């Protein structure tokens, strides 16, 4: 069969254009899928009207992490900062400064275990509770750890707190509200908290063996397994006592998280009920 040069050229152009169009469509569909927020199987988290979401200087939300099964990201939150120093000790110790130092050590320990780490602040800023939660809620496969130093309590001990599991009442159907973002994750948070508290109890005598329940404002709006770690206390005579605790606390968090990792199933995956 004889095909003229002109027709052959026309067919080549047509086939090339068709292939390019198909490739473009597939790229478009995959990019649209990655733009979707992590869902808890029923709804996308909706932020309450009027909740402040500040633009930078607070950390901008990076693009969702590479899609991998399971836990791969840790959002570490050094509490307080800016005009809010948190607990203050007689020796001029400020909680907001100490937790930044602790964050550096926690980050190092977590990265050694293979986790990616994001911080809600790295300087003397004070993002709002909602800003801090926003950073965690925008990630897929993330957990949230907020770090505190107490005013009171037995010096040399450390405690992990999670939201009470009775707060895990998830409204049937509809959109899960921003105010109750932690509700579907309460059981997972408890498991994560117990894993970390178990590690802390081994290192710091007098610490409880299980995580405690407390209605902590920061945890309520966090849509991920979330814990608060509080070490005692700014009342120590020498800041060095707290500095010496930090590597142990960081290691306990990293090991606790590594132990928790297999039991974490991404929301929305088959069989998962966070």
């Amino acid at each position, binding site marked *: 069969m004889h095909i003229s040069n002109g027709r052959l050229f026309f067919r080549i152009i047509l086939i090339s254009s068709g292939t390019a169009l198909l490739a473009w469509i597939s790229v478009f569909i995959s990019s649209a899928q990655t733009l979707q927020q992590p869902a808890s199987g029923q709804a996308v988290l909706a932020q309450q009207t009027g909740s402040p979401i500040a633009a930078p200087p607070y950390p901008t939300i990076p693009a969702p992490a590479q899609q991998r099964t399971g836990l791969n990201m840790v959002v570490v939150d050094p*509490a307080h900062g800016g005009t809010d120093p948190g607990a*203050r000790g007689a020796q001029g110790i400020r909680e907001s400064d100490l937790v930044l130092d602790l964050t550096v050590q926690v980050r190092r320990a977590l990265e050694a275990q293979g986790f990616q780490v994001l911080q809600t602040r790295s300087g003397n800023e004070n993002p709002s509770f909602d800003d801090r939660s926003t950073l965690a809620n925008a990630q897929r496969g993330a957990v949230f750890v907020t770090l505190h130093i*107490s005013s009171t309590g037995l010096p040399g001990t450390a405690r992990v707190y999670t939201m009470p599991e009775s*707060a895990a009442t998830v409204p049937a159907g509809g959109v899960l509200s921003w105010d109750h973002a932690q509700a579907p994750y309460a059981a997972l948070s408890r498991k994560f908290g117990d894993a970390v508290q178990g590690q802390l109890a081994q290192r710091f005598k007098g610490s409880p063996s299980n995580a405690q329940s*407390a209605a902590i*404002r920061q945890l309520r709006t966090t849509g991920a397994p979330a814990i*608060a770690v*509080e070490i005692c206390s700014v009342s120590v005579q020498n800041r060095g006592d707290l500095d010496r605790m930090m590597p142990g606390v960081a290691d306990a968090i990293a090991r606790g998280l590594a132990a928790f990792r297999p039991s974490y199933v991404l929301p929305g995956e088959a069989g998962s009920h966070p």
Partner: protein
Amino acid sequence: MNGNWRTWVLVGLAFAVLVAAIYFPVLRRRLKTTAKVSQPSEEQARRELTQAVPQSPSDPVVKTKLFWISGEDESALAPIAIELALSKDPVLRAKQVLNTLLAGPVDSDLRTLPPDAALLAFYLLPDGTAVADFSEALATSTPSGIQSEQMAVDSIARTLEANVPQVKRLKILIHGQELDTLAGHIDLTQIFVVDSKAAQRGAITLDLPARPALPPVAASLNTGAVKESQR
């Protein structure tokens, strides 16, 4: 003679000036002390006004359990039994036990609430939700920290649970306002469940279904305030 008389007057005047010069600083110091004594702080004045919970002689004396920090474990609460004349009316009874809780234990190291905090108002809604309105000192003087704030709220809730069975849930206001947190950590936008199970767990839990009911609570508060002022 005239010269003598003038000299004596001048000496007298000089002596008077000298005595006045010596006495003036003493007088000033005394005035300052008196002013300090007679001017109580705003918080003290408010406390004196708000603590006037009427006590009837017919109120039976009962064993009251108040929850302060345990002498053995500073991270836990322990009940201390005290004999108090308590009213049968749940609102008056709650005010009496909370004011005693605020007054603190004999050992001030064991107190859970700041000494300058005061209970401004207390309301009990028909569904068992109690609204306790405290002075600003509860928020500003409670040591910042999860543990210290949790113990402050826990001591209020457990003391109410032990002595005023009509109270099922608790909303804490600070000077009539809903605050985000007590002192930076514990969430005051929620309603705390006051029940024995929560107490056994050592935790005060949140009641999420109650959250949408907040506006009606606020609305009832106004009604309660009117009733309170009419008493």
